[in-house]
Protein backbone atom coordinates (compact mmCIF):
# COMPACT_ATOMS: atom_id res chain seq x y z
CA UNK A 1 0.00 0.00 0.00
CA UNK A 2 1.23 3.51 -0.84
CA UNK A 3 -0.52 6.39 0.93
CA UNK A 4 0.44 9.87 -0.20
CA UNK A 5 -0.99 12.84 1.69
CA UNK A 6 -0.67 16.48 0.69
CA UNK A 7 2.71 15.87 -0.85
CA UNK A 8 4.74 18.82 -2.09
CA UNK A 9 8.27 19.14 -3.36
CA UNK A 10 9.96 22.43 -4.05
CA UNK A 11 13.46 23.07 -5.34
CA UNK A 12 15.53 26.12 -4.60
CA UNK A 13 16.82 27.73 -7.76
CA UNK A 14 20.29 29.13 -8.17
CA UNK A 15 20.88 32.45 -9.93
CA UNK A 16 21.38 30.86 -13.35
CA UNK A 17 18.20 28.79 -13.03
CA UNK A 18 16.21 31.87 -11.94
CA UNK A 19 17.48 33.67 -15.02
CA UNK A 20 16.41 30.74 -17.20
CA UNK A 21 12.88 30.97 -15.77
CA UNK A 22 12.39 34.31 -17.53
CA UNK A 23 11.69 37.83 -16.37
CA UNK A 24 8.14 36.98 -15.18
CA UNK A 25 9.53 34.67 -12.49
CA UNK A 26 10.32 36.44 -9.25
CA UNK A 27 10.53 33.68 -6.57
CA UNK A 28 13.49 31.68 -5.34
CA UNK A 29 11.85 28.26 -5.37
CA UNK A 30 9.86 26.26 -7.84
CA UNK A 31 7.31 23.55 -7.04
CA UNK A 32 7.76 20.26 -8.89
CA UNK A 33 4.87 18.66 -6.95
CA UNK A 34 2.21 20.58 -5.03
CA UNK A 35 -0.33 19.18 -2.60
CA UNK A 36 -0.76 15.73 -4.15
CA UNK A 37 -2.75 13.05 -2.30
CA UNK A 38 -3.41 9.55 -3.59
CA UNK A 39 -3.53 5.91 -2.50
CA UNK A 40 -2.23 2.86 -4.37
CA UNK A 41 -3.70 -0.40 -3.05
CA UNK A 42 -2.34 -3.95 -3.03
CA UNK A 43 -3.47 -6.14 -5.94
CA UNK A 44 -4.22 -3.08 -8.08
CA UNK A 45 -2.24 -1.15 -10.65
CA UNK A 46 -2.07 2.59 -10.16
CA UNK A 47 -1.16 4.74 -13.18
CA UNK A 48 0.33 8.16 -12.80
CA UNK A 49 -0.35 10.14 -15.95
CA UNK A 50 1.18 13.41 -16.97
CA UNK A 51 3.05 15.22 -19.68
CA UNK A 52 6.84 15.57 -19.57
CA UNK A 53 7.84 17.71 -16.60
CA UNK A 54 4.46 17.25 -14.87
CA UNK A 55 6.07 15.93 -11.66
CA UNK A 56 5.63 12.15 -12.12
CA UNK A 57 9.30 11.26 -11.72
CA UNK A 58 9.67 13.58 -8.71
CA UNK A 59 6.66 11.95 -7.05
CA UNK A 60 7.96 8.43 -7.68
CA UNK A 61 11.47 9.36 -6.54
CA UNK A 62 9.92 10.58 -3.27
CA UNK A 63 8.05 7.28 -2.95
CA UNK A 64 11.36 5.47 -3.48
CA UNK A 65 12.96 7.71 -0.75
CA UNK A 66 15.47 9.22 -3.16
CA UNK A 67 14.00 12.67 -2.58
CA UNK A 68 12.64 14.07 0.67
CA UNK A 69 9.23 15.71 0.51
CA UNK A 70 9.15 19.45 1.25
CA UNK A 71 5.69 18.96 2.79
CA UNK A 72 3.23 16.12 3.27
CA UNK A 73 3.79 12.44 3.99
CA UNK A 74 4.26 9.17 2.11
CA UNK A 75 3.64 5.83 3.78
CA UNK A 76 4.76 2.62 2.10
CA UNK A 77 3.49 -0.59 3.73
CA UNK A 78 2.63 1.57 6.74
CA UNK A 79 6.16 3.00 7.05
CA UNK A 80 7.10 6.64 6.66
CA UNK A 81 9.49 7.24 3.75
CA UNK A 82 11.50 9.83 5.69
CA UNK A 83 11.75 8.17 9.10
CA UNK A 84 12.05 4.55 7.90
CA UNK A 85 13.72 5.15 4.56
CA UNK A 86 15.94 2.03 4.60
CA UNK A 87 13.05 -0.24 5.64
CA UNK A 88 10.85 1.26 2.90
CA UNK A 89 13.54 0.63 0.28
CA UNK A 90 13.83 -3.00 1.34
CA UNK A 91 10.10 -3.45 0.56
CA UNK A 92 10.34 -1.68 -2.77
CA UNK A 93 11.26 -2.59 -6.34
CA UNK A 94 12.16 0.37 -8.55
CA UNK A 95 12.49 0.34 -12.32
CA UNK A 96 12.73 3.21 -14.77
CA UNK A 97 12.96 3.32 -18.55
CA UNK A 98 16.47 4.70 -18.20
CA UNK A 99 17.60 2.24 -15.52
CA UNK A 100 21.20 1.35 -16.19
CA UNK A 101 23.11 -1.82 -15.48
CA UNK A 102 26.78 -2.37 -14.77
CA UNK A 103 27.94 -3.37 -18.21
CA UNK A 104 31.15 -5.11 -17.16
CA UNK A 105 29.32 -7.52 -14.87
CA UNK A 106 27.48 -10.63 -15.99
CA UNK A 107 23.75 -10.96 -15.14
CA UNK A 108 24.61 -13.43 -12.35
CA UNK A 109 27.23 -11.10 -10.85
CA UNK A 110 24.91 -8.09 -11.02
CA UNK A 111 22.03 -9.93 -9.40
CA UNK A 112 24.33 -11.29 -6.69
CA UNK A 113 25.50 -7.72 -6.00
CA UNK A 114 21.94 -6.44 -5.57
CA UNK A 115 20.94 -9.52 -3.56
CA UNK A 116 23.79 -8.66 -1.18
CA UNK A 117 22.55 -5.07 -0.93
CA UNK A 118 19.12 -6.44 0.00
CA UNK A 119 20.71 -8.84 2.49
CA UNK A 120 19.39 -11.98 0.79
CA UNK A 121 20.80 -15.30 2.01
CA UNK A 122 22.81 -17.22 -0.62
CA UNK A 123 20.38 -20.16 -0.83
CA UNK A 124 17.35 -17.91 -1.30
CA UNK A 125 19.20 -15.95 -3.96
CA UNK A 126 20.05 -19.12 -5.88
CA UNK A 127 16.46 -20.31 -5.67
CA UNK A 128 14.93 -17.03 -6.86
CA UNK A 129 17.59 -16.47 -9.49
CA UNK A 130 16.96 -19.91 -10.99
CA UNK A 131 13.21 -19.34 -10.90
CA UNK A 132 13.48 -16.10 -12.92
CA UNK A 133 16.20 -17.44 -15.22
CA UNK A 134 13.86 -20.31 -16.12
CA UNK A 135 10.88 -17.99 -16.49
CA UNK A 136 12.64 -15.50 -18.79
CA UNK A 137 14.92 -18.05 -20.49
CA UNK A 138 18.03 -16.26 -19.29
CA UNK A 139 20.38 -19.21 -18.83
CA UNK A 140 22.06 -18.87 -22.26
CA UNK A 141 23.39 -15.39 -21.42
CA UNK A 142 23.71 -15.74 -17.64
CA UNK A 143 27.51 -15.50 -17.70
CA UNK A 144 27.95 -13.09 -20.59
CA UNK A 145 28.96 -9.47 -19.92
CA UNK A 146 25.87 -7.24 -19.78
CA UNK A 147 27.49 -4.77 -22.17
CA UNK A 148 27.41 -7.44 -24.86
CA UNK A 149 23.71 -8.24 -24.44
CA UNK A 150 20.83 -7.01 -26.62
CA UNK A 151 18.36 -4.41 -25.31
CA UNK A 152 15.77 -7.12 -24.69
CA UNK A 153 18.20 -9.27 -22.72
CA UNK A 154 19.29 -6.26 -20.66
CA UNK A 155 15.68 -5.43 -19.91
CA UNK A 156 15.13 -8.97 -18.64
CA UNK A 157 18.10 -8.52 -16.30
CA UNK A 158 16.59 -5.22 -15.11
CA UNK A 159 13.25 -6.88 -14.45
CA UNK A 160 14.82 -9.69 -12.42
CA UNK A 161 16.91 -7.12 -10.53
CA UNK A 162 13.67 -5.29 -9.63
CA UNK A 163 11.71 -8.29 -8.36
CA UNK A 164 14.52 -10.52 -7.07
CA UNK A 165 13.99 -9.58 -3.41
CA UNK A 166 10.22 -10.13 -3.72
CA UNK A 167 9.16 -6.56 -2.94
CA UNK A 168 5.62 -5.79 -1.75
CA UNK A 169 5.55 -2.51 -3.66
CA UNK A 170 6.72 -1.88 -7.21
CA UNK A 171 7.46 1.54 -8.63
CA UNK A 172 7.85 1.86 -12.39
CA UNK A 173 8.82 5.23 -13.82
CA UNK A 174 8.03 5.24 -17.56
CA UNK A 175 9.30 1.67 -17.71
CA UNK A 176 8.74 1.12 -21.44
CA UNK A 177 10.20 4.43 -22.58
CA UNK A 178 12.51 3.90 -25.54
CA UNK A 179 11.93 0.16 -25.73
CA UNK A 180 10.80 -1.84 -28.77
CA UNK A 181 7.39 -3.52 -28.79
CA UNK A 182 8.65 -6.98 -27.80
CA UNK A 183 10.81 -5.69 -24.93
CA UNK A 184 8.01 -3.40 -23.73
CA UNK A 185 5.71 -6.46 -23.71
CA UNK A 186 7.97 -8.09 -21.08
CA UNK A 187 7.45 -5.11 -18.81
CA UNK A 188 3.69 -5.13 -19.35
CA UNK A 189 3.62 -8.83 -18.45
CA UNK A 190 5.70 -8.17 -15.34
CA UNK A 191 3.29 -5.46 -14.16
CA UNK A 192 0.31 -7.81 -14.71
CA UNK A 193 2.07 -10.62 -12.81
CA UNK A 194 2.69 -8.26 -9.90
CA UNK A 195 -1.02 -7.49 -9.70
CA UNK A 196 -1.84 -11.22 -9.77
CA UNK A 197 0.57 -11.76 -6.87
CA UNK A 198 -1.24 -9.09 -4.83
CA UNK A 199 1.56 -6.53 -4.92
CA UNK A 200 1.04 -2.78 -4.95
CA UNK A 201 2.07 -1.34 -8.31
CA UNK A 202 2.43 2.32 -9.21
CA UNK A 203 3.67 3.28 -12.65
CA UNK A 204 4.04 6.53 -14.49
CA UNK A 205 3.52 6.86 -18.21
CA UNK A 206 2.32 9.12 -20.96
CA UNK A 207 1.45 6.22 -23.24
CA UNK A 208 -2.35 5.95 -23.18
CA UNK A 209 -2.48 2.42 -24.59
CA UNK A 210 -0.55 1.17 -21.54
CA UNK A 211 -3.07 2.84 -19.27
CA UNK A 212 -5.95 1.13 -21.07
CA UNK A 213 -4.18 -2.23 -20.88
CA UNK A 214 -3.11 -2.16 -17.27
CA UNK A 215 -4.63 0.41 -15.02
CA UNK A 216 -7.11 -0.10 -12.18
CA UNK A 217 -6.72 3.34 -10.58
CA UNK A 218 -5.25 6.47 -12.02
CA UNK A 219 -4.16 9.98 -11.21
CA UNK A 220 -3.38 12.79 -13.62
CA UNK A 221 -0.74 15.31 -12.67
CA UNK A 222 -0.32 18.58 -14.51
CA UNK A 223 2.43 21.04 -13.61
CA UNK A 224 2.90 19.37 -10.25
CA UNK A 225 -0.77 19.49 -9.20
CA UNK A 226 -3.29 16.70 -9.13
CA UNK A 227 -5.95 17.09 -11.82
CA UNK A 228 -7.75 13.77 -11.31
CA UNK A 229 -7.54 10.81 -8.93
CA UNK A 230 -9.92 7.85 -8.89
CA UNK A 231 -10.66 4.47 -10.42
CA UNK A 232 -10.21 3.84 -14.12
CA UNK A 233 -13.87 2.79 -14.45
CA UNK A 234 -15.03 6.06 -12.89
CA UNK A 235 -12.69 8.02 -15.16
CA UNK A 236 -13.93 6.21 -18.28
CA UNK A 237 -17.57 6.57 -17.42
CA UNK A 238 -17.23 10.33 -16.86
CA UNK A 239 -15.19 11.10 -19.98
CA UNK A 240 -16.44 14.11 -21.96
CA UNK A 241 -14.44 13.20 -25.05
CA UNK A 242 -14.26 10.06 -27.20
CA UNK A 243 -10.75 8.85 -26.33
CA UNK A 244 -8.46 8.64 -23.34
CA UNK A 245 -5.87 10.88 -25.04
CA UNK A 246 -8.45 13.57 -25.79
CA UNK A 247 -9.78 13.43 -22.25
CA UNK A 248 -6.26 13.72 -20.84
CA UNK A 249 -5.61 16.79 -23.04
CA UNK A 250 -8.97 18.29 -22.06
CA UNK A 251 -8.25 17.94 -18.35
CA UNK A 252 -4.73 19.30 -18.72
CA UNK A 253 -5.98 22.28 -20.72
CA UNK A 254 -8.72 23.12 -18.23
CA UNK A 255 -6.21 22.86 -15.38
CA UNK A 256 -3.99 25.28 -17.31
CA UNK A 257 -6.84 27.82 -17.47
CA UNK A 258 -7.46 27.56 -13.72
Amino acid at each position, binding site marked *: MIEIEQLSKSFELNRRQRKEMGSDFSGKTVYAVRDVSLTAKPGRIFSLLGANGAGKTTTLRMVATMLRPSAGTIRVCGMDTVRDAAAVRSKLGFLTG*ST*GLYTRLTPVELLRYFADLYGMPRALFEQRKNHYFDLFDMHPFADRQIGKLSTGMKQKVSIVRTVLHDPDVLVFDEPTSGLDVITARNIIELIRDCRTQGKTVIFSTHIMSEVEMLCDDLAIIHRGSLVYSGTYEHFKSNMQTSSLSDEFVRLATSAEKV
Partner: protein
Amino acid sequence: MSLIGDSLDVVLAFPDDMAQKLDSMEQATITLYYRATEDDIRSRVDGILAGAQQLWLGQRLEALQVDPRQMEPVVVRRIDLSSSREKIGQTLGAMVPYFFMIFCFLGCMYPAIDLGAGEKERGTMETLLSSPASRLEIFMGKFGVVALGGLTSAMLAIGSLALSIQFNSQSFGELPPEFTESMSSMVQPGTLAMLFLLLLPLTVFFASTLMTLSISAQSFKEAQSLISPVMILVMLPTVVAFIPGIELTTANAWIPIFNVSLAARDILAGTLTTEPFLIAVVSLFALALLGMLISLRYYKSERNVLPS
Protein backbone atom coordinates in the same frame (compact mmCIF):
# COMPACT_ATOMS: atom_id res chain seq x y z
CA MET B 1 75.43 45.35 -42.12
CA SER B 2 76.09 41.59 -42.42
CA LEU B 3 75.02 41.23 -38.80
CA ILE B 4 71.79 43.10 -39.43
CA GLY B 5 71.23 41.04 -42.57
CA ASP B 6 71.54 37.85 -40.51
CA SER B 7 74.53 36.40 -42.41
CA LEU B 8 76.83 36.70 -39.33
CA ASP B 9 76.06 35.83 -35.72
CA VAL B 10 78.60 38.14 -34.01
CA VAL B 11 81.27 40.58 -35.16
CA LEU B 12 84.45 41.40 -33.25
CA ALA B 13 86.12 44.67 -34.28
CA PHE B 14 89.78 45.01 -33.27
CA PRO B 15 91.44 48.45 -33.31
CA ASP B 16 94.23 48.96 -35.88
CA ASP B 17 96.75 49.77 -33.12
CA MET B 18 95.88 46.75 -30.98
CA ALA B 19 99.40 45.19 -31.04
CA GLN B 20 101.14 48.51 -30.21
CA LYS B 21 98.75 49.16 -27.28
CA LEU B 22 99.33 45.68 -25.87
CA ASP B 23 103.09 46.08 -26.19
CA SER B 24 103.04 49.53 -24.54
CA MET B 25 100.80 48.24 -21.72
CA GLU B 26 97.95 50.52 -22.69
CA GLN B 27 94.31 49.56 -22.76
CA ALA B 28 92.87 48.54 -26.11
CA THR B 29 89.15 48.44 -26.88
CA ILE B 30 87.64 45.53 -28.76
CA THR B 31 84.06 46.07 -29.95
CA LEU B 32 81.64 43.12 -29.92
CA TYR B 33 78.56 43.40 -32.14
CA TYR B 34 75.86 40.85 -31.24
CA ARG B 35 72.12 40.26 -31.04
CA ALA B 36 70.49 39.97 -27.61
CA THR B 37 68.14 37.39 -29.10
CA GLU B 38 71.16 35.09 -29.70
CA ASP B 39 72.67 35.36 -26.26
CA ASP B 40 74.20 31.90 -26.26
CA ILE B 41 76.57 32.85 -29.10
CA ARG B 42 77.56 36.06 -27.29
CA SER B 43 78.33 34.16 -24.09
CA ARG B 44 80.53 31.71 -26.03
CA VAL B 45 82.53 34.62 -27.51
CA ASP B 46 82.71 36.23 -24.04
CA GLY B 47 84.25 33.01 -22.72
CA ILE B 48 86.94 33.05 -25.43
CA LEU B 49 87.65 36.75 -24.76
CA ALA B 50 87.94 36.09 -21.00
CA GLY B 51 90.54 33.38 -21.74
CA ALA B 52 92.50 35.80 -23.95
CA GLN B 53 92.26 38.50 -21.25
CA GLN B 54 93.87 36.08 -18.72
CA LEU B 55 96.62 35.29 -21.21
CA TRP B 56 97.41 38.97 -21.83
CA LEU B 57 97.26 39.70 -18.07
CA GLY B 58 99.72 36.87 -17.39
CA GLN B 59 102.09 38.21 -20.02
CA ARG B 60 101.97 41.71 -18.48
CA LEU B 61 102.55 40.42 -14.93
CA GLU B 62 105.51 38.38 -16.18
CA ALA B 63 106.91 41.47 -17.94
CA LEU B 64 106.52 43.47 -14.72
CA GLN B 65 108.07 40.57 -12.75
CA VAL B 66 105.03 40.26 -10.49
CA ASP B 67 104.00 36.87 -9.09
CA PRO B 68 100.36 36.22 -10.21
CA ARG B 69 99.57 34.93 -6.68
CA GLN B 70 100.21 38.46 -5.36
CA MET B 71 97.23 39.63 -7.40
CA GLU B 72 94.99 37.23 -5.46
CA PRO B 73 95.28 38.20 -1.77
CA VAL B 74 92.88 35.52 -0.50
CA VAL B 75 92.17 32.02 -1.77
CA VAL B 76 88.92 30.40 -0.67
CA ARG B 77 89.13 26.65 -0.10
CA ARG B 78 85.67 25.07 -0.32
CA ILE B 79 84.94 21.79 1.53
CA ASP B 80 81.53 20.20 0.87
CA LEU B 81 80.23 18.62 4.08
CA SER B 82 76.95 17.35 2.63
CA SER B 83 76.64 13.61 2.12
CA SER B 84 76.10 12.21 -1.35
CA ARG B 85 72.56 11.21 -0.18
CA GLU B 86 71.81 14.85 0.61
CA LYS B 87 73.10 16.04 -2.72
CA ILE B 88 71.31 13.38 -4.72
CA GLY B 89 68.24 13.62 -2.49
CA GLN B 90 67.87 17.34 -3.11
CA THR B 91 67.71 16.84 -6.87
CA LEU B 92 66.17 13.39 -7.28
CA GLY B 93 64.10 13.83 -4.11
CA ALA B 94 62.23 16.65 -5.79
CA MET B 95 61.26 14.39 -8.66
CA VAL B 96 59.91 11.52 -6.55
CA PRO B 97 56.99 13.46 -4.97
CA TYR B 98 56.19 14.85 -8.41
CA PHE B 99 55.82 11.33 -9.77
CA PHE B 100 53.91 9.86 -6.83
CA MET B 101 51.53 12.79 -6.76
CA ILE B 102 50.78 12.41 -10.47
CA PHE B 103 50.20 8.68 -10.01
CA CYS B 104 48.11 9.29 -6.90
CA PHE B 105 45.96 11.91 -8.64
CA LEU B 106 45.48 9.81 -11.79
CA GLY B 107 44.79 6.73 -9.69
CA CYS B 108 41.94 8.62 -8.00
CA MET B 109 40.73 10.48 -11.07
CA TYR B 110 39.25 7.76 -13.26
CA PRO B 111 37.46 5.81 -10.50
CA ALA B 112 36.06 9.13 -9.17
CA ILE B 113 34.69 10.14 -12.58
CA ASP B 114 33.26 6.68 -13.18
CA LEU B 115 31.66 6.25 -9.76
CA GLY B 116 30.18 9.75 -9.65
CA ALA B 117 29.20 11.30 -12.97
CA GLY B 118 29.63 7.97 -14.79
CA GLU B 119 26.98 6.26 -12.64
CA LYS B 120 24.59 9.16 -13.16
CA GLU B 121 25.12 9.08 -16.92
CA ARG B 122 24.64 5.31 -17.18
CA GLY B 123 21.52 5.42 -14.99
CA THR B 124 22.94 3.05 -12.38
CA MET B 125 22.99 5.67 -9.61
CA GLU B 126 19.20 5.70 -9.35
CA THR B 127 19.15 1.90 -9.11
CA LEU B 128 21.77 1.94 -6.39
CA LEU B 129 19.94 4.61 -4.40
CA SER B 130 16.75 2.55 -4.46
CA SER B 131 18.52 -0.27 -2.60
CA PRO B 132 18.35 -0.46 1.23
CA ALA B 133 21.97 0.72 1.51
CA SER B 134 22.13 4.17 3.09
CA ARG B 135 23.61 7.10 1.24
CA LEU B 136 26.51 7.18 3.70
CA GLU B 137 27.27 3.50 3.05
CA ILE B 138 27.16 4.00 -0.71
CA PHE B 139 29.37 7.08 -0.44
CA MET B 140 31.90 5.31 1.77
CA GLY B 141 32.02 2.40 -0.66
CA LYS B 142 32.68 4.68 -3.59
CA PHE B 143 35.12 6.82 -1.64
CA GLY B 144 37.03 3.73 -0.54
CA VAL B 145 37.47 2.58 -4.13
CA VAL B 146 38.65 6.02 -5.27
CA ALA B 147 41.11 6.44 -2.41
CA LEU B 148 42.37 2.88 -2.77
CA GLY B 149 42.91 3.48 -6.50
CA GLY B 150 45.06 6.53 -5.78
CA LEU B 151 46.95 4.88 -2.93
CA THR B 152 47.67 1.73 -4.92
CA SER B 153 48.80 3.70 -7.93
CA ALA B 154 51.17 5.89 -5.88
CA MET B 155 52.50 2.95 -3.86
CA LEU B 156 53.17 0.98 -7.01
CA ALA B 157 55.10 3.97 -8.38
CA ILE B 158 57.24 4.24 -5.22
CA GLY B 159 57.48 0.47 -4.81
CA SER B 160 58.63 -0.14 -8.36
CA LEU B 161 61.25 2.59 -7.97
CA ALA B 162 62.45 1.05 -4.70
CA LEU B 163 62.53 -2.47 -6.13
CA SER B 164 64.35 -1.46 -9.27
CA ILE B 165 67.04 0.21 -7.14
CA GLN B 166 67.32 -2.69 -4.70
CA PHE B 167 67.39 -5.56 -7.17
CA ASN B 168 68.77 -4.08 -10.38
CA SER B 169 71.84 -2.28 -9.08
CA GLN B 170 73.91 -4.00 -11.80
CA SER B 171 72.01 -2.13 -14.43
CA PHE B 172 73.27 1.10 -12.84
CA GLY B 173 76.80 -0.11 -13.56
CA GLU B 174 77.93 3.05 -15.26
CA LEU B 175 76.73 5.28 -12.42
CA PRO B 176 79.09 6.18 -9.56
CA PRO B 177 78.76 3.81 -6.57
CA GLU B 178 77.83 6.67 -4.19
CA PHE B 179 74.77 7.27 -6.34
CA THR B 180 73.44 3.72 -5.97
CA GLU B 181 74.36 3.72 -2.26
CA SER B 182 72.49 6.98 -1.74
CA MET B 183 69.49 5.70 -3.63
CA SER B 184 69.45 2.50 -1.56
CA SER B 185 69.59 4.50 1.67
CA MET B 186 66.52 6.46 0.48
CA VAL B 187 64.33 3.37 0.20
CA GLN B 188 64.68 2.16 3.79
CA PRO B 189 61.48 1.15 5.65
CA GLY B 190 61.63 4.29 7.83
CA THR B 191 61.79 6.56 4.79
CA LEU B 192 58.94 4.73 3.10
CA ALA B 193 56.83 4.88 6.29
CA MET B 194 57.27 8.65 6.48
CA LEU B 195 56.35 8.98 2.81
CA PHE B 196 53.25 6.87 3.46
CA LEU B 197 52.29 9.21 6.31
CA LEU B 198 52.20 12.04 3.77
CA LEU B 199 50.65 9.97 1.03
CA LEU B 200 47.67 8.70 3.02
CA PRO B 201 46.00 12.06 3.83
CA LEU B 202 47.02 13.39 0.42
CA THR B 203 45.16 10.52 -1.25
CA VAL B 204 42.07 11.11 0.89
CA PHE B 205 42.23 14.80 -0.02
CA PHE B 206 42.55 14.02 -3.74
CA ALA B 207 39.76 11.43 -3.54
CA SER B 208 37.38 13.83 -1.77
CA THR B 209 38.12 16.72 -4.15
CA LEU B 210 37.65 14.54 -7.21
CA MET B 211 34.51 12.88 -5.85
CA THR B 212 32.98 16.30 -5.12
CA LEU B 213 33.67 17.49 -8.66
CA SER B 214 32.51 14.25 -10.20
CA ILE B 215 29.24 14.23 -8.22
CA SER B 216 28.43 17.77 -9.27
CA ALA B 217 28.85 16.85 -12.96
CA GLN B 218 26.07 15.26 -15.00
CA SER B 219 28.23 13.28 -17.41
CA PHE B 220 31.65 11.66 -17.75
CA LYS B 221 32.77 14.40 -20.16
CA GLU B 222 31.59 17.21 -17.92
CA ALA B 223 33.47 15.67 -15.00
CA GLN B 224 36.62 15.39 -17.09
CA SER B 225 36.43 19.05 -18.09
CA LEU B 226 35.93 20.05 -14.44
CA ILE B 227 38.81 17.92 -13.19
CA SER B 228 41.46 18.71 -15.84
CA PRO B 229 42.21 22.25 -14.56
CA VAL B 230 42.49 20.88 -11.01
CA MET B 231 45.31 18.63 -12.16
CA ILE B 232 47.27 21.71 -13.23
CA LEU B 233 46.55 23.36 -9.87
CA VAL B 234 47.90 20.27 -8.11
CA MET B 235 51.02 20.05 -10.23
CA LEU B 236 52.09 23.70 -9.88
CA PRO B 237 53.02 23.56 -6.16
CA THR B 238 54.73 20.23 -6.81
CA VAL B 239 57.08 21.82 -9.34
CA VAL B 240 58.17 24.37 -6.69
CA ALA B 241 60.11 21.57 -4.97
CA PHE B 242 62.48 21.60 -7.95
CA ILE B 243 63.55 25.17 -7.17
CA PRO B 244 66.75 25.04 -5.09
CA GLY B 245 66.88 26.97 -1.85
CA ILE B 246 63.22 26.54 -0.84
CA GLU B 247 63.07 24.80 2.53
CA LEU B 248 60.19 23.26 4.46
CA THR B 249 59.53 25.64 7.34
CA THR B 250 56.89 25.83 10.08
CA ALA B 251 55.18 28.55 8.00
CA ASN B 252 55.00 26.90 4.58
CA ALA B 253 54.33 23.43 6.08
CA TRP B 254 50.66 24.50 6.29
CA ILE B 255 50.33 24.90 2.51
CA PRO B 256 48.78 21.71 1.11
CA ILE B 257 50.53 19.77 -1.68
CA PHE B 258 53.43 22.22 -1.52
CA ASN B 259 54.25 20.82 1.93
CA VAL B 260 54.15 17.26 0.59
CA SER B 261 56.65 18.10 -2.16
CA LEU B 262 59.11 19.75 0.21
CA ALA B 263 58.68 17.21 3.02
CA ALA B 264 59.11 14.27 0.63
CA ARG B 265 62.23 15.87 -0.82
CA ASP B 266 63.68 16.39 2.67
CA ILE B 267 62.75 12.85 3.72
CA LEU B 268 64.61 11.42 0.74
CA ALA B 269 67.59 13.72 1.29
CA GLY B 270 67.62 12.85 5.00
CA THR B 271 67.45 16.54 5.97
CA LEU B 272 63.93 16.56 7.41
CA THR B 273 63.24 18.47 10.62
CA THR B 274 60.54 17.15 12.91
CA GLU B 275 58.40 20.21 13.62
CA PRO B 276 57.53 21.26 10.03
CA PHE B 277 56.98 17.60 9.13
CA LEU B 278 54.47 17.15 11.95
CA ILE B 279 52.69 20.36 10.94
CA ALA B 280 52.52 19.10 7.36
CA VAL B 281 51.09 15.72 8.40
CA VAL B 282 48.55 17.17 10.87
CA SER B 283 47.38 19.86 8.42
CA LEU B 284 47.05 17.25 5.65
CA PHE B 285 44.95 14.96 7.84
CA ALA B 286 42.74 17.92 8.83
CA LEU B 287 42.36 18.91 5.19
CA ALA B 288 41.57 15.33 4.20
CA LEU B 289 38.84 15.13 6.83
CA LEU B 290 37.37 18.47 5.76
CA GLY B 291 37.45 17.40 2.11
CA MET B 292 35.70 14.16 2.97
CA LEU B 293 32.93 15.92 4.89
CA ILE B 294 32.35 18.37 2.03
CA SER B 295 32.28 15.51 -0.45
CA LEU B 296 29.78 13.58 1.70
CA ARG B 297 27.60 16.68 1.98
CA TYR B 298 27.66 16.97 -1.81
CA TYR B 299 26.75 13.32 -2.17
CA LYS B 300 23.84 13.64 0.21
CA SER B 301 22.46 16.61 -1.71
CA GLU B 302 19.44 15.62 -3.82
CA ARG B 303 20.39 18.15 -6.45
CA ASN B 304 23.80 16.56 -7.03
CA VAL B 305 23.29 12.87 -6.65
CA LEU B 306 20.38 12.28 -9.03
CA PRO B 307 20.49 12.73 -12.79
CA SER B 308 18.63 15.90 -13.76
